[in-house]
C-alpha cells in the first residue's frame, strides 16, 4: 500500500514538474520590450482566434490610447499572443508586436492583417485558440480588443473581447 502511494507520488511529481519549473502563457515572466525595455503586465485576454486559411478568417485587433497629457513621456507597449498550450507565438524581445505611443496617440496591433484596420503593427500569428497580454512601460493606457473577420470591408462579423486588468477577472 505504502509502495503504491510512493509510486503515485513519483508519477505526480513527474507530471507536475514541468509546470512548476517554468510557468507559461499569461503567468510567464515578463519579457523585455525590444530586448531592452522593462514593462509591466497591464491587461489580459482569453478566447482568441486568429486564422488565415479558413472559409472565414479572423484576426485579434488590440487598440490602445495613451492617456498621458502632452507633456508626458512616450509609452512602449507590446501585445504578446499565446497558443492554447501557453507558448508565446511572437517575440516582444525581438520587437514583434511592440509600438511606441506618444501622449494621446492611438495605435492598433493585430495578429494578422485585416481589411478594416490599417494596423500599426501586425505580428502575423495564427491561433487555433489562445490568449494575449498587454505589456507596457506605463499603465496610463486604455485598451480595447476585437475579434474581426479579416477579408471584407466592412467585416462580416466583429465583436468586442473582454479585457481584464492584469490577470484579474471581475466576473459578470
Amino acid at each position, binding site marked *: 500500500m505504502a509502495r503504491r502511494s510512493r509510486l503515485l507520488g513519483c508519477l505526480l511529481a513527474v507530471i507536475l514538474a514541468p509546470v512548476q519549473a517554468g510557468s507559461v502563457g499569461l503567468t510567464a515572466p515578463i519579457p523585455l520590450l525590444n530586448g531592452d525595455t522593462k514593462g509591466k503586465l497591464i491587461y489580459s485576454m482569453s478566447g482568441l482566434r486568429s486564422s488565415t486559411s479558413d472559409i472565414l478568417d479572423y484576426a485579434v485587433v488590440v*487598440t490602445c490610447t495613451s492617456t498621458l497629457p502632452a507633456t508626458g513621456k512616450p509609452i512602449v507597449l507590446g501585445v504578446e499572443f499565446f497558443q492554447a498550450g501557453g507558448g508565446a507565438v511572437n517575440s516582444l524581445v525581438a520587437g514583434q508586436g511592440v509600438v511606441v505611443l506618444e501622449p494621446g496617440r*492611438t495605435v492598433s496591433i493585430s495578429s494578422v492583417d485585416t481589411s478594416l484596420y490599417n494596423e500599426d503593427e501586425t505580428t502575423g500569428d495564427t491561433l487555433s485558440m489562445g490568449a494575449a497580454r498587454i505589456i507596457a512601460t506605463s499603465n496610463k493606457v*486604455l485598451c480595447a480588443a476585437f475579434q474581426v473577420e479579416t477579408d471584407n470591408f466592412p467585416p462580416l462579423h466583429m465583436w468586442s473581447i473582454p479585457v481584464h486588468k492584469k490577470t484579474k477577472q471581475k466576473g459578470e
Partner: protein
Amino acid sequence: MKLSGAISFCAVLLLAAPAGAGLGDKPPLLNGDTKAKHVYSMTGVLSETNGLSTVVTCTSLEKSKDLLFAVEFFGTFGAALNDVTTAGVVTIPPGETRSIGSLDTSMYTETYAAGLSRIFEVLSARVLATSSKLLCNAFLVEEDGTPTVGSRLPVYKKTKQAGD
C-alpha cells in the same frame, strides 16, 4: 519694429507649445463658455464612410435640470477632430436619451453627427458633460444601409480602465 519683434516672439511661443494630446488634455469649454467634466473615454473608435461609424448614446440621470454633453473625437496622433467649443453640444433633459455619431448612420437618428470620415485610422474619444449623472454606451455600427455588423465599444470612466 518692437511690435513686430513681439509678434514674432509670441508666434514662436505659440508654435512651441505642445500639440493637443487627446484624452489627457484639459476639457475645453462646451460652446465656448460652459465648463465640462471628462466623464468617459473610449479607444478603438472608427469613423469610416461606407465602413464603420461610432455612435455614443447617453441617458441623463438628472432629476430636474438639463445637462449638456458632447463627444470629442481625437485622431490617431491625439489631435482633436471636432471643436466642441463651437459645435456638437447636445442638451439632454432629465431622464431623456440622446446620441452623437462620428458619422450619420442609417440605423440611428443621431441627435448630432460630427461628419468625420477617417478611413483606416483608429481614433479615441471622450464624453464631456456638465454633470456626471449620465449613463453612456458606445457602438461601432455600419454607416451605410441596414447594419449587418457592429460591436460594443468599451466605455471607460474618465481615463481609468477597471477591466472586464
